[in-house]
């Protein structure tokens, strides 16, 4: 390239064009009127926060007494390294931990398994047994810090391991706070860490919820997640619709097991993505919160106010972030965080700007946390409860989205329910079609993505910044520790605990949690526990429908 060329202004645009003004439709395709007037809003009064149906929030005082939880997802390599990152984040004002686990741990393979080897420590920390969990939580006060685990296929096992660590720390179980994601239904559609077939998986989830209600009443034993549907391609309306449909499937399973809905519904929590269409995201939360309360009250006769409260966490970023011009992501996450706060989220995870292409560095992880702190302490948007409440547009869009979400739920019910739709591969197929549609919109420039299809700098190098590199020694160390543990533990005790687990799994109605906790205390590994359950239950066979 000649010098004069290098000095030219970088070329902008898809093909040197300025995009048209965005069409007046939300990202879900809802037509937006130029102006919304009072007569267009059916429910003139959205009610009060803290009162049914909770359009304006689940607490009367919003964030005035307690802000949302700042919960950054992190974990990589070995338990030692991740423990160090946790202490780093806690020292900087993070108020809850969120554990990222590696894929072998999530899919139930020990680190020495041939399927596991290339993935050990890659997308999260390797946590194959209690000895690793002891290291992970070293020096962390489990009574004070709440811990969230993004874990599904092996959620019951990781929950058991956490309880075993708490036992070792001498922390009473009833004091533990935190969350396990434990939402297997969406894994079959979007995230892919399923292990067992759908029905035994539902049983295991009911086991964890019923056990948790008794033993760890402040713990959230499930976080029913729409986030992964969304990142996989579906719209905001479908994200909420599918999630609530799954929520109802869990409710039905728990009722079948004799659970008391006024009790277990108090501990059901939810989890979503926030993408860039600001008002649609705000209204998605308002509408979903109201719809869930209505469904539980109208269909199941739930009376307890606590059981009607729709509590949810969010992640800001995900597939709305781009590898091109990564610093643009800082702004995206800022906008999305504001939508989450105005939508009334209970906990927020802000993605780091480099997360579209790598594990965040310390500096990008810190900036992501600072984004939340700026909005919490400087922007002032959390000073009054639901500041957007009563806006004609916001109330109109909330109503429209609620209607459309209900239509999505009814569509699944007409198909035969969430479980059937997933076993058949119907939801998977719908999601893939949506993904293709979303990609087409961005490929054609119909949906503008700044820095990607318009306003590109032709000369730029993607993925600037310092790269995070996993220490190869830490993977080696994970394997060594694993071999050492196997040599050191009481083999007879492990065998006995695993045999009892397998026997309980063969019965239809025994709660497996006590057996899993015993296995963890005996230092049985995740792979061993999963193998025992697979022998009884088999494995999920993925339906391929394209």
């Amino acid at each position, binding site marked *: 390239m000649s010098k004069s060329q290098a000095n030219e202004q970088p070329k902008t645009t898809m093909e040197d064009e300025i995009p048209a003004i965005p069409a007046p439709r939300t990202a879900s395709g809802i037509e937006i009127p130029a102006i919304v007037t009072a007569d267009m809003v059916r429910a003139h009064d959205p009610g009060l926060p803290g009162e049914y149906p909770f359009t304006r929030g689940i607490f009367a005082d919003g964030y005035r007494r307690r802000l949302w939880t700042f919960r950054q997802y992190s974990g990589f390599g070995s338990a030692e390294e991740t423990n160090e990152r946790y202490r780093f984040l806690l020292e900087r004002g993070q108020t809850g931990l969120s554990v990222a686990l590696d894929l072998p741990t999530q899919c139930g393979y020990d680190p020495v398994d041939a399927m596991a080897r290339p993935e050990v420590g890659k997308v999260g920390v390797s946590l194959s047994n209690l000895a690793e969990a002891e290291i992970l939580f070293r020096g962390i006060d489990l009574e004070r810090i709440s811990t969230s685990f993004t874990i599904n296929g092996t959620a019951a096992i990781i929950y058991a391991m956490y309880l075993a660590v708490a036992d070792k720390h001498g922390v009473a179980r009833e004091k533990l706070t935190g969350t396990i994601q434990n939402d297997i239904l969406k894994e079959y559609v979007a995230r*892919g860490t399923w292990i067992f077939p759908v029905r035994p998986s539902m049983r295991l989830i009911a086991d964890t919820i019923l056990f948790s209600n008794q033993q760890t009443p402040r713990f959230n034993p499930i976080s029913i997640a729409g986030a992964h549907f969304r990142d996989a391609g579906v719209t905001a309306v479908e994200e909420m619709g599918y999630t609530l449909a799954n929520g109802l499937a869990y409710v039905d399973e728990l009722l079948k097991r004799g659970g008391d809905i006024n009790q277990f519904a108090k501990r059901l929590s939810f989890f979503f993505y926030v993408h860039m269409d600001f008002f649609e995201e705000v209204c998605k939360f308002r509408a979903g919160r109201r719809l869930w309360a209505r469904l539980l009250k109208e269909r199941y006769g739930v009376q307890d106010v606590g059981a009607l409260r729709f509590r949810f966490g969010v992640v800001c970023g995900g597939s709305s972030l781009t*590898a091109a011009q990564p610093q643009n992501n800082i702004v995206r996450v800022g906008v999305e965080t504001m939508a989450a706060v105005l939508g009334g989220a209970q906990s927020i995870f802000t993605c780091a700007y480099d997360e579209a292409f790598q594990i965040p560095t310390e500096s990008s992880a810190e900036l992501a946390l600072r984004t939340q702190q700026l909005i919490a302490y400087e922007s002032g948007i959390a000073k009054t409860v639901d500041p957007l409440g009563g806006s004609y547009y916001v109330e109109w869009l909330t109503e429209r989205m609620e209607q459309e979400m209900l239509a999505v739920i009814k569509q699944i019910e007409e198909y035969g329910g969430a479980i059937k739709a997933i076993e058949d591969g119907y939801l998977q197929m719908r999601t893939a079609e949506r993904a293709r549609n979303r990609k*087409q919109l961005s490929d054609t420039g119909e949906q503008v993505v700044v820095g990607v299809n318009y306003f590109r700098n032709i000369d730029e190098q993607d993925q600037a910044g310092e790269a995070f590199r996993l220490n190869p020694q830490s993977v080696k160390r994970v394997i060594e520790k694993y071999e050492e543990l196997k040599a050191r533990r009481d083999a007879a005790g492990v065998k006995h605990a695993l045999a009892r687990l397998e026997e309980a799994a063969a019965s239809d109605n025994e709660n497996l949690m006590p057996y899993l906790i015993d296995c963890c205390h005996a230092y049985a590994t995740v792979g061993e526990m999963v193998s025992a359950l697979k022998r009884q239950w088999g494995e999920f066979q993925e339906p391929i429908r*394209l």
Partner: protein
Amino acid sequence: MTLRGKRLLIAKPGLDGHDVGAKVMALALRDAGAEVIYTGLRKSPDYIARVAMQEDVDAIGLSILSGSHMALVEETIKHLRELGIDDKPLFVGGTIPHEDRQALLRSGVRQVFTADMRVADVLATIERELGS
């Protein structure tokens, strides 16, 4: 529709559960006239190589977003070589950092595709590579 008559294998090696890219490309390739075989999630490199041989495909696409692409691609190439079918074009899509792209190309991968590329461009590249 210049991929008519071609048989393509789209595969997910390793434990990564992100299948959006794999499915979007499978749908797009099918619409472009190709016959597409999709393995589904969590397949070993050994299995993928065997399917490639049994199905006598014209090319193989691996989708990997877990960061394990270097090891998984190397393994897959090893198995393709063992079966004597390492001359089949191999494509890789996913979250691939810039510096790894070059290394993959050197190891025998024909093209590396990332999410920011247009589907039409990816299709055109595949068509060109397959000489159709």
